[in-house]
């Protein structure tokens, strides 16, 4: 009895993400199968870029070898600095701006993209020290970056993304196809 009740409270309590953020998805990023991204948009318009739980990095007990925010010889997201309330100096990103490259121990490499237009506020340096955060808590402590959309674009930037329901139906179709072919 006790146990059932406990499980109930555990399940019912909405998480911080549930309470304050809306989940948006981009499936099969740049046509690459299952490279799904999840954007958490706070009610204050700020966006947190995360890996969707379906992303290949998080499948089949993979481990991460390295995470690199140096996206080209001339540009590292680690050099991003913002100052003041207006966040002067932050790099401005478009939908397909790469944020980082993640290499798994099996040498597969994945690029994570911004998915939305806006100013880069910060990247998550904690995952450089502890890549496991990304595996264990992809939607909270394992986030990739924080982006602030322009005020006037705070609604329109998610127009090209999938809602949670739309994304779930994409994922379930995927598993249908998989089960048919296998």
């Amino acid at each position, binding site marked *: 009895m006790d146990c059932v009740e*406990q499980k109930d409270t555990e399940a019912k309590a909405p998480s*911080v993400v549930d309470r304050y953020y809306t989940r948006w998805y981009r499936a099969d990023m740049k046509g690459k199968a299952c490279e799904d991204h999840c954007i958490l948009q706070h009610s204050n318009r*700020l966006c947190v870029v995360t890996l969707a739980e379906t992303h290949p990095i998080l499948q089949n007990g993979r481990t991460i070898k390295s995470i690199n925010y140096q996206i080209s010889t001339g540009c590292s997201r680690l050099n991003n600095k*913002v100052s003041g309330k207006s966040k002067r100096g932050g790099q401005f990103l478009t939908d397909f701006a790469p944020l980082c490259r993640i290499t798994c121990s099996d040498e597969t490499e994945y690029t994570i993209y911004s998915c939305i237009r806006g100013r880069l506020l910060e990247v998550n340096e904690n995952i450089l020290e502890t890549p496991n955060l990304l595996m264990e808590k992809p939607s909270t402590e394992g986030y990739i970056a924080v982006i602030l959309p322009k005020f006037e674009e705070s609604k329109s930037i998610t127009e090209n993304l999938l809602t949670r329901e739309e994304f779930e139906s994409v994922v379930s179709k995927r598993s249908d196809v998989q089960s048919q072919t296998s």
Partner: protein
Amino acid sequence: MLPLKEKDKPIVQKLLSAGCCARCVLRFCCVSVQAAYRQPQQETLKELKAFIADTENSKCQDSAGPDSRDENNKSHEAAVSDTPEDPPSKRAKLEPSVAAAQCEEEDAAAAVVRPKDDESPVCVVCLGILQELCGTIQAVKIAEAVKAESYEFDTLVLSVSLPAQLCVREHSCWLHVKKEVREKGLVFDKDDVIQVKEAFKWIMQGLVAKELGGVAVVTRSAFEVGVEFTHPQTDADCHFLATTCPDCFKPTKNKQSVFTRMAVVKALEKISDAKFLKHYPCPPTQPTSSCISQDIQCLHVSVFVAGRYNKFCRSLPQTPWVIDGERRMESSVEELIAAPILSAFRADGFNFSSSGREDVDVRTLGNGRPFAMELLNPHKARLNKVEMKKLQEIINKSSDKIRVRDLQIVTREAMSRMKEGEEEKTKTYTALVWTQKPIQREDIGFIDDIKDLTLDQKTPLRVLHRRALAVRQRVIHSMNARFLDPHHFYLGLKTQAGTYIKEFVHGDFGRTKPNLCQLLKTDTDILELDVESVDVDWPPAIPE
């Protein structure tokens, strides 16, 4: 008799023929005897004309002793009652005094139809300010404006706003008589001439005081009554300055005209006499109309009220909550407190500030949070202790969502005590915490032993859109945990002001370190938060 000397004679002559009014003549002669301005202007004019006509008389005046002012007053009174040329009364007499006689005279002067021989043209320098526009009619207008808003006050100060081209005309007139004025030996600069504003106040202060039943009209007061004059030709009169000193007149968004008094004064300081004389007539030309008197503006300086508030409701924001122009919650702490205070002080508006603020879903218990309010333009500025106590009761009866204590009137300076050292002050909280893994009583016992835990808090994501990104160090001085059930406990915290409690509990995506999730090695979340105390010793407590 006017306190004029032989050396004034050429100045008087020049100014009168240039079209100056009698009072402006007195100003340029630097007459600082206020009574000379208060007497009817037609009287002054008559005396000035007599003065320049009669050489012998003026010589006598020069040798007059120190009691010459008394003689002036006597002769003035005599002149008022004896003058056969006084215009006929257009109104029933209100009171048979000297002032009443003056009143009739002003009425007549302002009337559209005036006796031909008495008609004085609009003064080329003051544009009527020291003529028809000052006197009993103006005083009645001012008094009525003050009474209409039923202000409560002991003293008042008159402020006068004049159209900018008066400076231009004053300058032109100064250049016209500069040589003669300087020859008097006492006066060297334009600034030594009696200002139009000053003369206007000398004339008006007593009249306004009388209309308001003996209120003291003084030079410094918390209650200001503003008299504003405009003139349709201001831009036309000042326009030449914009071409000669273009850098003085930069267009500003909120000003109707670039020709503000400040800008014109600055341009006149820059322009050479020769250049001025080339572009502007000297003496100034006859205007087509006099100034227009605008509505009287009354303003009482702000009153400051302080106290402490409790907030008992988890759906009440501190200030009105508006998103995309739409109101989210029906009320707010500041509105609930302000409404009764505004009506008690009959103020036009308010600015609310407090020692920190709580989120919409947070209660503030204990002795409450210090707050202060600036009341704008209060029509009643004084409430005694009993009245303040009553006001506090009215606020507390008006809503059960909030409660106020220690309500008192404070000074503007004292208000800063609330903000100073805010960072060093401590606050205590109680949080209802949820844990993902089930806990037992002894699992949380170690929390009570943690002392002075320093946190590195990145600006929380929930406020990062409007605040700078930074890592701030904050100290949790002490904590205590009270077990509730396997997934819940109450966490008491005593922290440095400015610590983000919610983020300490849920970790804010690992952006606050250390956080409670790390300490308890499970996900934790905050379900409820109460502020138990805000340890600021201002405002002083008022015994119940």
